[in-house]
């Protein structure tokens, strides 16, 4: 893979960081801090949310970071782009509120976001 590995940034101020909750299919709940400007996929990877595979590293080409956005949150997160919608064809159990986590950018507005992860990402 071509992308540079992430270096942890301890300097970020935690009190202003948005929180995201991942609920895995087996019920495991992770509520973690997310850095503004990063993606929901990157946030999952930094916090060892195992059901986010992200095989392509965030290039929107593998559909292995599928999340089901909580219905309440979906209007804020928004709908997928045409490119992302095309990739959703490669995912399984796609629902109307499904998104690829690598395509959701973290903003202050997303503080409190809840997403659920599927049992199977294709591998």
């Amino acid at each position, binding site marked *: *893979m*071509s*992308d*540079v*590995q992430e270096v942890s940034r301890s300097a970020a101020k935690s009190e202003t960081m948005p929180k995201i909750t991942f609920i895995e299919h087996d019920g495991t709940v992770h509520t973690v801090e997310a850095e503004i400007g990063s993606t929901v996929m990157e946030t999952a990877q930094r916090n060892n949310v195992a059901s986010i595979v992200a*095989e*392509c590293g965030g*290039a929107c*080409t*593998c*559909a*292995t970071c599928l999340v089901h956005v909580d219905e309440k949150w979906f209007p804020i997160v928004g709908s997928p782009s045409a490119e992302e*919608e*095309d990739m*959703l*064809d*490669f*995912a*399984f*159990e*796609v629902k109307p509120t499904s998104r690829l986590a690598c395509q959701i950018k973290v903003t202050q507005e997303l503080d409190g976001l809840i997403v659920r992860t599927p*049992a*199977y990402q*294709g*591998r």
Partner: protein
Amino acid sequence: MSETIKTDVVIIGAGPVGLFAVFELGLLDIKAHLIDILDKVGGQCAELYPEKPIYDIPGIPYITGHGLTEALMEQIKPFKPTFHLNEMVTTVEKIGEPLFRVGTDRGKVFEAKVVVIGAGGGSFQPKRPPIPGIEPFENKSVHYSVRKMDAFRDKNLLIIGGGDSALDWTLNLQPVAKRLTLVHRRDEFRGAPDSVNKMRALVAAGDMDLKIGQVTELEGADGELRAANIKGKESVERVECDAMLPFFGLTMKLGPVADWGIKMKDELIPVDTAAFETSIPGIFAIGDINTYPGKLKLILSGFHEGALMAQKAYHYVYPDKRLVFQYTTSSTSLQKKLGVA
């Protein structure tokens, strides 16, 4: 069984790192055959991000995965590597000191003094849809690729997917099959517009069916498919079928490499950092598939690993010769090999 192909080096994986290894080996007069499970060269660069930008290739501020693959193919042209695509290495056995016998799923057999594993994240294999009870049907009536079209003659065939693979096989198999049904989760297709139009024309003419939904259940016995349930927006529909082809793209699986007796760690191959050799002398691992202290999964790291690997491989291929280090800038002998002197 076909004739054994004898060569200096077999490279498993034709991604960027495997391709550049051809260059480094070629400068040392070492011939290579490359084997890759994909139908094209370039590995992840070709399969996952052909059109995506790469910004960290030294000296190249910006290039796409496709562009890098093309450039590497141009660079290694003087060394005339032989490619065996659409083929997976299944066995690697040690038969000499060192000499290896390498076998593929297509029945090809190679004999090489050195094996270089540049298999990245493993082999790209089709994604299997999570339909309960699908396993007994797989490779009997559920297939993930088409090797012989005739296998689907006079079948009630279900094809799942909305990309080019699904559409191409729909168009190719529609005249062969008894009845073809294409199943896709939405009434939009990302495949080539021309294929979409042709498919829609067949549907309009009543020569095939299109169902919008997801296959949720299979019916049948002893590996013989009888029907599938397709869940649409409002209802579930049962469609009779005796063959199914799901096309959900590819995913990387480690594959047979774990069975070759090489020491592994967490699905990676530990190597030394002097030559990137594995626990079996004569077998090297370069690129994303290896691990060592400080390892970074970068294409540029894989290039470096290939260069050092070639130095040691030279001693296995030419045990009696002494290797003199030379630069392409100044060495007439290297420039001759590159066809520029």
